[in-house]
């Protein structure tokens, strides 16, 4: 593509996004903002600070994944994000999920990812993953999507009720898995088997016919 054309197209895309956002802002936020009664902010206690800290870790890690040019830095950022999310689970009285997150996600998936990274790229290479499209397009995308979701989150008429006190969930989840959610559980195990076999098949080298 010629530079001129590229510039034109980017300009058009930017304009479209901005228009979209503005329009959405006018249409969505305007009317709803007047209706919604703002709840009183209340006092800021220690849990809130913790929350914001964990949220910052998670979002910061995610940002690192998105922005970083170095794939290893992205991996570390992913680690941070997963950890942060785990912490947030604790906040949400989902202790079993939190632990599972740490064990499976960080212990399994992230390690796997790191293995893949090591196996498929030269460590010395830095600029593997960034192009001209990358930065600007990513910004645009962020600008287009994030407000939408944020608006939905903030303006949604969630029927929020007073949450239950924090309680351990392991037993409850276990019960649920074997009673109500038995079938998905069994299917998931089948799926895992399939995945195992498939991954092995796919990753091995071609057998040369002699």
């Amino acid at each position, binding site marked *: 593509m010629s530079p001129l054309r590229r510039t034109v197209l980017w300009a058009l895309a930017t304009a479209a996004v901005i228009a979209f956002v503005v329009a959405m802002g006018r249409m969505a936020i305007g009317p709803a903002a007047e209706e919604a009664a703002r709840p009183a902010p209340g006092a800021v206690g220690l849990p809130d600070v913790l929350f914001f800290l964990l949220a910052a870790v998670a979002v910061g890690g995610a940002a690192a994944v998105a922005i970083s040019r170095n794939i290893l830095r992205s991996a570390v950022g992913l680690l941070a994000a997963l950890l942060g999310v785990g912490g947030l689970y604790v906040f949400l009285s989902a202790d079993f999920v939190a632990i599972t997150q740490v064990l499976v996600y960080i212990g399994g998936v992230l390690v796997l990812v790191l293995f893949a990274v090591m196996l498929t790229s030269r460590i010395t290479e830095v600029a593997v993953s960034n192009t001209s499209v990358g930065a600007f397009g990513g910004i645009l995308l962020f600008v*287009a*999507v994030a407000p939408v979701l944020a608006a939905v989150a903030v303006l949604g008429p969630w029927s929020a009720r007073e949450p239950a006190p924090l309680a351990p969930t392991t037993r409850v989840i276990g019960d649920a898995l074997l009673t109500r959610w038995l079938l998905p559980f069994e299917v998931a195990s089948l799926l895992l088997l399939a995945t195992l076999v498939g991954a092995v098949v796919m990753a091995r080298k071609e057998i040369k016919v002699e």
Partner: protein
Amino acid sequence: MEHEAVHGLEALAPIVATPAAWLRWVPLLPLLGAMWNAALGKRLQARLGKRAVHVVAVGVMTAAFAVAVVAFSTMLGLEPEARFLEDSVWTAAVADPLRIDLGFALDPLGMAMVLVVTGIGTLIHVFSIGYMHEEPAYWRYFAYLNLFAAAMLTLVMADNLALIFFGWEGVGLASYLLIGFWWRDRDKAAAGMKAFVVNRIGDFGFLAGLLILFWLLAGAWGTGTAPGSAGPTLNWRELRDQIALPGTGVAEHLQAVRLLGLPALGLVGMLLFVGAMGKSAQLPLHVWLPDAMAGPTPVSALIHAATMVTAGVYLVARLDFVYALSPTAMGWVALVGGLTACFAATIGFVQTDIKKVLAYSTVSQLGFMFVGVGVGAFWAGAYHLVTHAFFKAALFLGSGSVIMACHHEQDMRRMGGLGKVMPVTRWTYLVATWAIAGFPVASGFYSKDEILWKAFTARHLELMGVPVPWLGPAIWAACLVAATGTSFYMFRSYYMTFTGSYRGAVGGHGEHDAHGSGHGSAEDHGHGHQGPRESPLSMTAVLVALAAGAVLASFLGLPAVWTGHEPALERWLAPSLTAGHSVPFTEFPHALEIAFQGLGVLAATVGWLGARALYAEGRSHAPEALKARFAGAWSFVNQAWRVDALYDRVVVRPSVALARGLSRFDGVVIDGAVNAAGAIGRFLGRLDAAIDAHVVDGLVDGVATVTRRAGGQLRRLQTGRIQTYLYGALGGALLVVLLDFLVP
């Protein structure tokens, strides 16, 4: 002022007409012969020889002559006033109440003409067998000759003026075809054209006169006609009867009307005579006749001596009742005739081509005939017509015989002494010369003297409405001089040709030098290397017959002063030439008439003796001395008073320049306009093509191109990269979100 010249016409009553359905064969037979030879002649001649051609041609002419004889005998059996045969074949045009018929009628005048045309015509056809013996286009010659005969007979036998005009044009056509018979020679072809063009000028006058006459007549009937009158007509018999009947008021009306300050009837007579001037080669439209000698000699004999040129005389005689009502027209006719007679005679003095001598002699004699009909002696003019036919034909055919014997030599200076080797030709030529000179025994004397006497006694002539009583005698004097000249140059030609010693080249090709009218290459073959010999029997027999006719025709016109009663021909023609009675000739004592006859003979003798002194036996050197002495005058007269040069300067060159100018106008302006229109069309066509190619095709191609380009661009969507598709999906999802808000 017009005199009351209608006495005697009232005596006529409408007359019984005898139907004769076989009359149409007289002109029809030669026409069929012409068509036969035109269609089949070439092939028959190639297969069966020349005999196949002339048997048909001479056969139809003989048959026509036979029918004419039958008509003649039928007429003889009728009462003189009842001698009117008619045959109405077909109605050609009807414009109520006018009818124009294809119809033939024979009254005594027509009968005389028909006998002359068919009789002398047949003889000349026979002569042509020998004369045109070596011509390859033998069949074409006879076809044209028959065509001429058919046209001439149509003219003479027509019962209405429209058909006369048709025949008039027909003889003009045949004359053109025959004069330019050897058309490959440019000069001969030009001579044919000249004849046709000059004739055409005359025809214009004829038509003008005819139309004015018709207009006058329609006017006459329009104003209170008598009951029982037939209405406007072109039939000359009905015309004559209408004019003759008292009470129709036609005659008075015709004399009373004036056009352009002139009496209308006089104008009609003069205009019709203009036609006759063209056809009969009178001054100033005579110029075609000498050039017409380019045609074969029998043609000159038949057409330009005996028949076609006499059509003008016939016309005036036929319309005698019109001329009799108008002394102005008569004066005009007589004056022109007299001037022509003198003028042509002077030129005949100095010509060296034998055919040219005879041509100018013909012009001169025609002048005499017009003098005759002009002064009111209609029967005398007709009589001279008949006698002239015989002796002029004999002279022409005799000259043809001489020309053929001298290997197509026409210059008299290279002839001489032929009397010894061609006795028959010599004697017949001499008899004919005797006739034309006007000695008694041969008929020319009788006819010419009758005319001269009548001219002298005509004191009633007018010019442009002014009475000129001395015009008659003046014309007589001029004609007497012309008669002397006639005798002189005719005997000159006789002596130069037949006496003395032969001056021509024998056996060499000297005769091929250019002279006179030149020869067509078709006529030049290698004759033998002998000297001149007598011509074959087919030719000499005709010469004898014609010479005999020239003598015997005397009996038709023995003058009244000798016999005490009307000459036979005058009596015969009386029922036709009724107006002759009403012309007021002054009476003179008979003794004076006989004295004038003697004067005529004296004039002829003077001419003869002069010619004999200068030219007989080729002894005298006086001619050369005189020519040297009067060289300027000689060359002026030799070139026919430079009339041709005058016409060329005054008429021909401006016409050609006008034609060129018009042609240029046509080529530049008119063709330019047409080409411009064409260019506009072409331009519009190109514009359309461009529109079609660029706009229409562009549109069509554009659709295709847009489609292709759109496709070319749209395929970029399919990049094969997941991330692109991701963007697309996200974009769509966001769009849905937007729409959710937009759509109420």
